[in-house]
């Protein structure tokens, strides 16, 4: 498979920033053991390649402060741009699981996102629910919803609150402590699936610790 011409294409200023996905081909090397170099030159459309690329694999890591919670953060494609066009946000998806048992209220640390003071909470990859502030309640109340959980007898009861809070007043403004909060009128147990998306302005490198 000879790709040396590729360099001369770039020098010839044949680099584009957008294409018609259905009509544009990308060169690929198909594994072919019958060839001396092991690969056969071929092509795939941009559309077909994009459809084949799924979401990245997720590996949950047990939290050091709250071992009942396992979570991870993964960068996801796409950006959010403010109407003025000046601020572009990258998106990161935080996913995890938590097992709650034996109490009527829980506040478990999911993880701390470090590296950017401005940080948006977004949901379903598109809708901005609230911008983060230094006050706990703004974001938490916007995200609050009630769910049914099992009490000590196995009967279903409604939670009084269930939300994921972002608090960046604990250590440093660029350290966001994300916490799962659930309360009910009686001790309950529940398996919780954590899945939300955040967005931070492009530039700073952010990290996730749990």
């Amino acid at each position, binding site marked *: 498979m000879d790709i040396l011409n590729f360099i001369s294409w770039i020098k010839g200023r044949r680099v584009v920033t957008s294409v018609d996905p259905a009509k544009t081909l990308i060169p690929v090397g198909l594994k072919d053991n019958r060839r001396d170099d092991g690969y056969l030159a071929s092509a795939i459309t941009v559309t077909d390649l994009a459809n084949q690329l799924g979401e990245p694999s997720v590996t949950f890591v047990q939290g050091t402060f709250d071992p009942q919670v396992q979570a991870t953060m993964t960068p996801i494609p796409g950006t959010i741009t403010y109407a003025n066009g000046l601020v572009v946000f990258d998106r990161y998806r935080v996913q995890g699981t938590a097992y709650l048992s034996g109490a009527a209220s829980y506040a478990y640390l999911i993880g701390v996102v470090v590296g950017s003071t401005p940080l948006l909470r977004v949901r379903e990859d598109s809708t901005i629910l609230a911008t983060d502030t230094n006050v706990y309640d703004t974001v938490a109340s916007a995200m609050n919803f009630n769910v049914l959980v099992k009490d000590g007898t196995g009967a279903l009861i409604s939670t009084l609150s269930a939300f994921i809070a972002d608090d960046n007043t604990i250590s440093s403004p660029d350290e966001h402590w994300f916490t799962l909060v659930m309360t009910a009128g009686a001790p309950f147990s529940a398996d919780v699936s954590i899945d939300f998306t955040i967005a931070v302005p492009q530039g700073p490198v952010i990290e*996730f*610790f749990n």
Partner: protein
Amino acid sequence: MKKTNLKQYLLAKYGKRELEILAKLFSQKMKYIEQGKK
């Protein structure tokens, strides 16, 4: 994004004494939230 141990991160940045204070502060705030005193 491979570093995931929060305790190690906080310990390296703030030191042992400050880490204990942060952990206590976090715990107190969570108790406050749990009790519905938002």
